[in-house]
């Protein structure tokens, strides 16, 4: 697997750092991790994608599954720091309109910190 996965917490919210290649080989691992972190008590999730240089359709699907579960639990799912080519993929699939995308962690956590 050419993807590095790290979990930490910020303001009590799971913050995942992904680095490398987020593709068919790593997607099911990440999807299972995302789904295991979300529940009624903890419905929010932030994924920092700054280090991800390649995402394929199964990587996208893992993120979509995470976002849907957050929304079902009335939480939010946020992505931080998409590289330009990865953003291009989101635009191709129109998922840039579905996800909450933030340039920095600070921006993604701003209203969590206030809330």
């Amino acid at each position, binding site marked *: *697997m*050419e993807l590095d996965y790290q979990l930490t917490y910020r303001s009590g919210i799971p913050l995942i750092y992904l680095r490398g*290649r987020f*593709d*068919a*080989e790593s997607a099911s691992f990440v999807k299972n991790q995302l789904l295991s972190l979300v529940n009624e008590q903890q419905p929010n999730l932030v994924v920092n994608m700054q280090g991800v240089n*390649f995402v*394929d*359709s*199964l990587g*996208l*699907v893992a993120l*979509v*599954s995470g*976002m*849907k579960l957050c929304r079902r639990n009335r939480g939010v799912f946020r992505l931080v720091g998409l590289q*330009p*080519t990865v953003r*291009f*993929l989101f635009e*191709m*699939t*129109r*998922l*840039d*309109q*579905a996800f909450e995308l933030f340039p920095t962690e600070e921006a993604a956590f701003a209203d969590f910190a206030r809330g």
Partner: protein
Amino acid sequence: MLEQTNPLDNSSADLRVFPLESARINLRVPARLDCLPVLCATVREFCATIPGLLNANDSPPNRATINAPGTTSYSNFVYSIELVLQEAASNIVRHGYQESGKGFLELAVSLPEVEDLAGAKRRAIVLELTDNALPFDPTAQLVDTPDPLNMPESGYGLYLIRKLTDHLEYSRFGSLNNLKMVKYVH
């Protein structure tokens, strides 16, 4: 008469003397998901090591062109090529071979001049994947444009292959599948 140069010599940045027709890579890997990054890296290198490949040197002036490495259009072009290859190969490994770990994937990359639907000559990157997995014709499938409100959890792969290529061709010879994916360089 064009002057010929050694295709392995990257020192020339002039496409007029570079024999693009001779640029070709063939690679055969085991049909496993962990081998797909090797295929993608090969295509990325193929794009990067051919001098001036994506520049305007042999392009008619009225066509949009891909710019030099480092620009957004170049990065998106190369990403598109990698993505199309990744999606097609991943489908073959997961569905065709059902992740058995057996079988092979053979990739051929070339840069021929092709005719588009209007009959105009275009330079193109052609990716050909050959395998002996179960038959699967991605050109025969109905593909919807993803709806961001609905957010489907499947179907992006075939959509991307269709969206990011200019021409797709599938054929089956005996026990072999052959998928040809064409993307115009300009």
